[in-house]
């Protein structure tokens, strides 16, 4: 059956093949089917023939931006640290980008992790990606052996069952609150335009947590990270986590212990989220990658909400706007500052 996804898949294959055949790119980064019916995996096509394997569907949850700097580097001639880059243009890479991924690419470019010139971006407006866990819940723990997707519906089946649901019901949380489905940088648009979405209460869950008292919030946080095994899949899936030595692996200084001690795990999650402050585009790759189902997106989502509210900053929307923590405004909010010089808040003390 002809669907938006199948049409887009065809278009991607065509474009990718064309790019590789014409030599405009040395590799094309997309997705192929995974080993299970509910997953896809990122794939680098290096020959025109390989592009036939590419797919585009609602299971493409891994953020392709994450693989770009490494892929680009692998295509450069090897050089020693400190050695100047070779003269002349370097091989280019074709890649698919949705709204959030393209914004990550913007940040990677802003943070000097890659050059825009080396990318050929096929822009695809995102219809939202499917949360594998929501399918598993739907299947009631039974093994899903096949999955079919239409524009609006998802059909799963297994040995003794076949179920159908609206896509909307099984989309990832981040896709449900996404307001920027269209890529912000691209070289060619593939497939139809999805209008900018107006989401009713995009931060509803965050606000719900904010309304809880401190004790309940701590309890929620502890419960949320209780199953963390410190595998760092969330970090590894994130296109923004590219430090050569992550703070969790560093021993000079050792900000956080290596064990699954409760405090160390909490510290890991706080700092991981904080490192994404003002940079996270809510692509959801971290949650999709987590084997334990931890909703660590909520931590970055909170920071995203604050950046928007405090600094009117949405990361990665264009190449020329500085990231919020690399700039300031003289009039930035400072209501959290308790000032001895101002009388506000200092009347509490009973001392005369």
């Amino acid at each position, binding site marked *: 059956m002809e669907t938006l996804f199948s049409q887009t898949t065809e278009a991607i294959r065509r474009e990718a093949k064309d790019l590789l055949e014409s030599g405009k790119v040395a590799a094309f980064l997309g997705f192929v089917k995974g080993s299970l019916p509910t997953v896809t995996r990122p794939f680098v096509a290096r020959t025109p023939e390989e592009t036939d394997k590419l797919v585009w569907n609602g299971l493409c949850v891994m953020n392709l931006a994450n693989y770009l700097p490494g892929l680009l580097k692998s295509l450069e001639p090897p050089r020693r*640290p*400190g*050695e*100047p*880059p070779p003269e002349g243009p370097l091989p280019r890479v074709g890649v698919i980008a949705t709204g959030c991924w393209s914004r990550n690419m913007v940040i990677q470019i*802003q*943070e*000097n*992790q890659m050059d825009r010139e080396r990318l050929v971006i096929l822009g695809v407006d995102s219809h939202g990606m499917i949360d594998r866990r929501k399918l598993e819940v739907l299947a009631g723990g039974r093994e899903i052996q096949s999955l079919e997707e239409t524009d609006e519906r998802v059909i799963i089946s297994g040995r003794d069952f076949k179920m159908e649901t609206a896509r909307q019901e099984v989309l990832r949380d981040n896709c449900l609150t996404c307001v920027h489905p269209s890529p912000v940088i691209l070289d060619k648009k593939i497939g139809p335009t999805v209008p900018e979405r107006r989401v009713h209460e995009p931060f509803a869950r965050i606000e719900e947590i904010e309304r809880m008292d401190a004790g309940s919030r701590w309890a929620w946080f502890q419960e949320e990270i209780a199953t963390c095994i410190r595998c760092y899949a969330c970090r590894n899936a994130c296109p923004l986590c*590219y*430090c*050569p*030595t992550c*703070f969790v692996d*560093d021993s*000079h*200084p050792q*900000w956080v212990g290596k064990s699954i001690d409760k405090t160390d795990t909490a510290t890991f999650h706080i700092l991981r989220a904080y*490192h994404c402050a003002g940079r996270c585009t809510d692509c959801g790759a971290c949650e999709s990658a987590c084997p334990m189902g931890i909703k660590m997106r909520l931590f970055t989502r909170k920071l995203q909400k604050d950046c928007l509210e405090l600094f009117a900053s949405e990361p990665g929307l264009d190449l020329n706007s*500085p*990231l919020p*923590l*690399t*700039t300031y405004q003289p009039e930035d909010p400072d209501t959290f500052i308790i000032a001895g*010089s*101002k*009388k*506000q808040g200092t009347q509490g003390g009973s001392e005369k």
Partner: protein
Amino acid sequence: MSNPSDRPKGSVMVVGGGIAGVQAALDMADSGFYVHLIEKSSAIGGRMSQLDKTFPTNDCSACILSPKLVECGRHLNINLMTLSEVLALEGEEGAFTATVRQNPRYVDPAKCIACGTCAEKCPKKVPNEFDLGLGKRKAIYLKYPQAVPLKYAIDPDQCIWLKKPGRCGMCQKVCPSGAINFDDQPREIQIEVGSVILALGFSPFDPSILDFTGYGRLPNVVTAMEFERLLSPSGPCLGHMERPSDHKEPRRIAWLQCVGSRDINRACHGYCSSVCCMYAIKQAVIAREHAQGPDLATSIFFMDMRTHGKEFEAYYDRARAEGVNFHRCRIHSVLPAGHDDNLILRYVGDDGLINQEEFDLVVLSVGLEMDRQAAELARRLGVELDPNNFVATSAFRPVSTNRPGVCVCGAVSEPKDIPQSVMEASASALEASRVLAPSRWSETRKKEYPDERNVWAEPPRIGVFVCSCGINIASVVDVAAVTDYARTLPGVVFAQNNLFTCSQDTINQMAEIIKREGLNRVVVASCTPRTHEPLFQETLRDAGLNKFLFEMANIRDQDSWVHQKFPDEATQKAKDLVRMAVAKVRQDEALAYNTVSVVKRALVLGAGVAGMTAALSIADQGIPVVLVERKDRLGGHARKFYRTWQGDLVQEYLKGLCRQVEGHSHIDLRLGTSVERVEGSVGQFKTLLSDGSKVSHGAAIIAIGAGSHKPREGRWNYLYGKHPEVHVLLELDKRFIKEDPALKEKGQTVFILCAGSRVSEKPYCSRVCCTHAIDQALHLKELNPDMEIFMLYRDIRTYGEKERLYQRAREKGIVFIRYDLDNIPKVWDEQGKIQVEAKDPILDRPVRLHPDMLVLATAVRPKVDADVVSRAFKCSMTSDRFFLEAHMKLRPVDFATDGIFMAGLCHYPKPMDETIAQAKAAAARASTILAQDAIPAESITAVVDHGKCVGCGVCTMVCAYNAIHLDEDSRLATVDTAMCKGCGACVAGCRSDAVTLKNIGNEQIMAAIEAAMEIC
């Protein structure tokens, strides 16, 4: 007398320890001359130290001033003489002999530890003149908390003992260091210097002679200076803003402008005091901040609002937007309200009706006048005063007096604000050093240190010195227990308690102990590192240890003094602080005393008056200058000027200046050339010019000037470019220069001031136009006394002594008609005849004029290529596209990037005398670098671990000094150590922990945190 063929003296005397004197002293000392700084009170700091905040940045005055004072107090080549006055000055330029009387302090500064016990116990309370009598001090006192030198003094007029020996002597009894010396005597000292700088400051006008103000009779009428103290957190009401009568917070405050200024009739001061409009607005803004919000009513009553400085107009706009009320009228009298000590002001409102308004407090914006003692001193020294009693100077020699070798700076020559004073201070340093250049470094001192022991491979051997500070620490903290405890800490091999760790004998002993015990790290637990760290670090160097192997534990200012009733807790805290310091010092490393060698050449960009003056000022000292000018000829903007406001002809002066530049053997002139690219940093710049050459230079001065705005379109066009008799100011000057005979024939001339200035498109005030236009009008009157002249204006801003032109213009019958932005003048052409219509606000009806000539005072606008220069030198600009100085108040010619300075119109519009002063100031500042073979650089700098750096560039963006960049090849962050100031913004910004700060590294901070939390 000395033999005139002798080399000049290599030293200078600066008289006056206010901000101008301090700046002049620092600039002189830093460029190789020994300085005697003479201050008549017990501490330097002057008027600025009394201010609460400063306009237009609202900086805390004490915060920005203190570091300069401390630097001055500690400078090896500044001999600070407080309580001193100059009696006589003999000799001539190059070889003066000054007689100075040093009055007794009665406190031995070598022994005083500023603990304050004496003042606490002194029974004699007297009004504190620092708080203008609003608060009290004791007969033994510290002038103010941040005083330099931080030494107490006895007021001989108040001290019980000094009046009747034997009667009190309490201070002597309680002083823990035996510093009191009642037998101290005045001394007369002869000082030989090559030149003299007078920085005598001003006195605030005393309004008690003006009965209408009620000052002295009505307690809630205060002067602006008094109000500063009422606002100040260190003032008599600790910043709570209380009014004098009942110590209640005022809810309605009025400011009366021009009290003692612009008033020939009552105050005898015809001049404008320049600063009062801005300080009144500032006080209104700050008062509203103190009162938290809109319920404090603030009203300023003024004649003309004179916000003519950089960023001032924006400040004024903001104040209006925030709700400060401005009333354009002079108050006839301040009347008591008859209840609650409130006051009544009657004034004519905008509607023309008489209003009556009640206020809780009235602030008199008193003017600045020549200090009586300063005037006497000037006369003693043979220095001429002008008719307003200020020291006389001239347009082309703005910091010189009539007596060769005696220079002047600051408000003593004309009322002026802080940045202008600082600029002149640097300029006077340049002027004073010009003749002395051959004797540079001849009288300065340089300290020698022994070679440093390499302790890198040694395990820590830490010595801890715990200070009792007399009883300041020991009366609260159990210092013996702290000392015993220190011995138990890992790495500590020696601990000792001292009565006064900073006393000379203990210092000597400490050096001995370091050597004897083989210490390689030292901790002193005593007072604050802000005052004492340099002293102890010096001791380490004397003992052959690198000075960075040192930490302090602040167990006095931040422990014993603030927990006086909790000895157990304070002792515990002292132990914690010592443990934290030990934990940190253990990881301290020896750091290099960084220096940068200096290329002794200056690059000056722009060959107008500013650029040429700067170039000559440097070249005359024998330092080569490359003078780069984009155009094919010298002279710049000044080529179009007829005369200065003082009446000197500009073209003749300019010709002389050009001749000097062209013939100067040390000036390499590059006309028709511009800057392409700038690399390097202070001491070592490399600049590529458009002629293909590359210039190495140690410093640069940017003086690219500005242009005048030509209103070719829009509502301010006024027939400009369409009618031959419509000019902008400088076009009329051109006709003056040419001596155009047609000018005499004009029957009527109209000037429109602020034509396109102070509006949303061009919000700033161009500072010079009012004076320039009025002077032109006066010249037209000279050419044709019968000419009718009308000036349409918004505020007349003839600040300072320029006010006399305004007075003369009115005397000559020039008619001034005010307009506002709702009713701007209308101009049209009726059969070749210019028609002007304006609304007269006094008559409240239109006035129709038919001038033969219309002159538009348009804005001075920044050069288009200022942006290019800004990018090349990586220096910032204001939103109005003028160059942005490192600090609006105290570094008015420096860029934030070291080694680059600015002068002239590219900084902000200014008249000729100020341009020349600023050019000399820029040359002086550049000389502080160029006079050295090498300049010190920060030792505590950022350092990048390339193994961890991922080249994201966050550090480069948060660095305010362009001191970290991504290496072109490796694409990894690289610190330019010479430019790094060690703030650590990059460290906190780095997600990868790739950047750290030497000796304030993350692991050291962690060690301190963990030590603080350890339970002992």
